[in-house]
């Protein structure tokens, strides 16, 4: 019983972090049909930048903000230099290009920060007690923070002027252009926002398991799964799917080893693709 409770908390917390990662990925895919292979590596880079900023300033919030801004800028540069030239070409080329970028980022991080694991210390110390269990406060704080950030993103998209631009461009790029919306700029901005979300997730996740060069791939893979299960381009769906898949994995980890628990999400993905390809959390298209 205790195990189930702990795993539920794990699932929820991990789900919120994953939701942040997936939201960036699904935004990017929804608006410009790009499957960003490097998304997890942007997360990893953000975590390293965050760790460095933390090391210099000792302030968690500065680390979070700094990482988000730096990686947002990097994302914008990447999009303009390597992805913009590929617009209109076979989607395969963008997958390959982002895969190439992913390799470069991984090795760069290795070169810049070395192979040892970096630490991001917990922003909120101590545990809280649930029944007779101890659960770290910072994990709860992380989930809440992720929720707030996602809420902010949702508000921005729903009510801001630029949010409308983004949503219009996602639905009909050509008509958005005809209305004077500068679509190339919107693309760059969305890629930057997605990158910032990934970076912030990296800093949030830092205290959980340390910061290493390879932490990105796991997230990329899971984020892909969640984006497909939630419905590609569907922000709300990917958030729900993140929590759903994370909970399933957490429960599976009770029975099998964590390395094997990941197979659960694979199975969910495959089943979704076979039977509900538009997404599990999307109403059946008419």
């Amino acid at each position: 019983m205790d195990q189930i409770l702990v795993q539920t908390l794990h699932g929820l917390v991990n789900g919120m972090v994953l939701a942040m990662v997936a939201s960036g990925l699904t935004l990017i895919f929804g608006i410009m049909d790009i499957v960003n292979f490097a998304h997890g590596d942007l997360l990893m880079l953000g975590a390293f930048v965050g760790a460095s900023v933390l090391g210099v300033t000792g302030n968690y919030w500065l680390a979070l903000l700094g990482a988000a801004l730096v990686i947002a800028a990097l994302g914008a540069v990447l999009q303009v230099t390597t992805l913009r030239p590929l617009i209109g070409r076979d989607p395969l080329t963008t997958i390959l290009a982002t895969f190439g970028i992913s390799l470069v980022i991984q090795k760069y991080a290795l070169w810049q920060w070395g192979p040892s694991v970096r630490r991001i210390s917990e922003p909120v110390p101590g545990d809280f007690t649930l029944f007779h269990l101890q659960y770290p406060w910072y994990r709860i704080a992380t989930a809440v923070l992720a929720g707030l950030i996602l809420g902010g993103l949702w508000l921005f998209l729903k009510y801001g002027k630029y949010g409308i631009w983004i949503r219009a461009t996602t639905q009909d790029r050509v008509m958005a252009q005809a209305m004077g919306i500068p679509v190339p700029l919107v693309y760059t901005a969305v890629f930057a926002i997605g990158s910032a979300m990934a970076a912030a997730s990296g800093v949030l996740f830092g205290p959980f398991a340390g910061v290493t060069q390879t932490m990105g791939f796991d997230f990329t893979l899971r984020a892909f799964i969640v984006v497909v299960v939630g419905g590609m381009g569907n922000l709300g769906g990917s958030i729900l799917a993140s929590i759903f898949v994370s909970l399933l994995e957490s429960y599976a980890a009770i029975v099998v080893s964590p390395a094997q628990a990941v197979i659960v999400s694979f199975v969910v993905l495959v089943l979704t693709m076979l039977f509900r390809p538009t997404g599990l959390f999307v109403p059946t298209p008419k």
Partner: protein
Amino acid sequence: MLVLENVDAHYGKSHVLHGVSIEVRSGEVVGLLGRNGVGKTTTLKTIMGMARRTGGRITFEGRDLHGVPPHGLAGLGIAWVPEERRIFRLLTVLENLRTGLDRAGMTPERREALLEKVYTYFPILKERRNQAGGTLSGGEQQMLAIARAMMLEPKIILLDEPTEGLMPRMVAQIQEIVHALHRDGVAILLVEQNVPLTLDAAGRVYIMEKGAVRHHASSAELRADQRVIHEYLGV
């Protein structure tokens, strides 16, 4: 104001427009008639940069449109109401309007005024302003598409088959709108298959066939001699 000189266009390898020359002067309503598939919509799309212009020139107020990015046309004063309407289905009516309303240089007062003006033209849109665009009826979507174009305070509206698929009552409403826009001094390039409406609304008419302009006359002339219409449109 809007001048197409000898314009050729291609979709991929298909040569779809042949030496099209059309002119719309400031404040004019000009009609573009022709059967299905003769290139009327393609002409509008070529102006909007969606078909590849491979010959000739398109100028607007003397400025060559070559090299103007697709999102720059709205700023120049060219608005487009496409054949399929293409309203943003998942955005509300108001959000649809805001895609044009939230332009640079629009003060809150001007925005309020423009919105109110459009609501007086289309009261039903005011009523449905918080509804998703996709839930509107065909006629309402057409009105939204036109209203959205008006948000750009354009000098010219490229209006593609606004009455297609609409009931007679709505058709009359569209006719009213076109007259009102004309009174406001907005030029209109009206693509239509509805001949009586076009002859009524437009001063001059071009008739197209097989990707080229075959005939050009004033509406008065065409009304007087129905043979030309019969020949090209079989009506």
